[in-house]
């Protein structure tokens, strides 16, 4: 297979996954489940989120820490987009994805640098926010990237 230029590879990624939005490295949510942190905002219409990938950049402090990701729409009902997962044993360099079903935990189920991603075509999200929550206040940093395609004209996602 030929070596494709960077611009062709970018087009290829757009074809597969849509547009990417990267969030800067940050500390884990520290609010003990009281005040979840907005990581991404969906604006001006519905999008299809095709992939969501997190990566641990600084090792997580020991101890249980259940992570949740919730979609809070501007109009409508807030809901988790995946089940909570304890990330206590995850190491620097490990990654997270989601399966696409809201009852499915963050993937992988055990710490790893490899993970199956999104068994569905994606998750439809209405305008609003994606918030990350935790039930503990542990040290550790991570970064997240989201891929999406707009469903409504003008819809887009920004990182917070």
């Amino acid at each position, binding site marked *: 297979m*030929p070596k494709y230029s960077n611009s062709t590879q970018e087009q290829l990624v757009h074809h*597969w996954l849509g547009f990417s939005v990267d969030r800067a490295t940050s500390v884990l949510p520290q609010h003990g489940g009281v005040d979840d942190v907005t990581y991404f905002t969906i604006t001006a219409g519905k999008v299809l989120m095709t992939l969501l990938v997190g990566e641990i950049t600084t090792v997580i402090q020991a101890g249980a820490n259940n992570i949740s990701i919730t979609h809070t729409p501007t109009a409508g009902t807030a809901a988790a987009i995946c089940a909570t997962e304890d990330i206590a044993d995850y190491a620097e*360099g490990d990654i997270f994805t989601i399966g696409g079903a809201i009852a499915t935990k963050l993937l992988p189920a055990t*710490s790893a*640098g490899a993970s199956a991603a999104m068994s569905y075509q994606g998750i439809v999200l209405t305008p609003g926010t994606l918030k990350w929550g935790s039930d503990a206040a542990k040290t550790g940093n991570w970064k997240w990237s989201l891929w999406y395609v707009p469903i409504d004209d003008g819809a887009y996602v920004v990182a917070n």
Partner: protein
Amino acid sequence: MYDNYNESTRQMIAAFCMGMRVDTATITIPHTATTIYYHIHGGKILLTNLVGEIVVAADGANSVHIDHTPTTGSASVIAAAADIDTWLIGDIITLNGLYSDVIFPVVAAGKSSSMAYKGIVLTPGSLSWHSNGTTAGDWKWSLFYVPLDDGAYVEAIV
């Protein structure tokens, strides 16, 4: 009309449908050993498919699985072990995407479902093949991927 496309256009269409392909040479099945077939460099990728093909049949029990060993982070299996004892020349091997699932198909066949997930996210590191037998047999593999980070790419080293 479909026959009118030149080879480079057909390759481009394949890349857009399956991701970029990286082939190994035809190689002997590992003999109770770990052999690295691919390196991931420069950032994360989405492995969109992995297809193996038996070129010379195995001649005895040999359980094979595939592991990802990241440069930083935790190593893990990306496909659970399956015995390829009964596999024939021309049979193919794929995977489902979930690391707890055995390589596909479960029994020898020249056809297989492949990748129920959108793919497998892999951080930089290596993909290695493991076996617990010393049987004869050759195979070749093709890996398909799209880069998730700028500059990420895959290299076959066998």
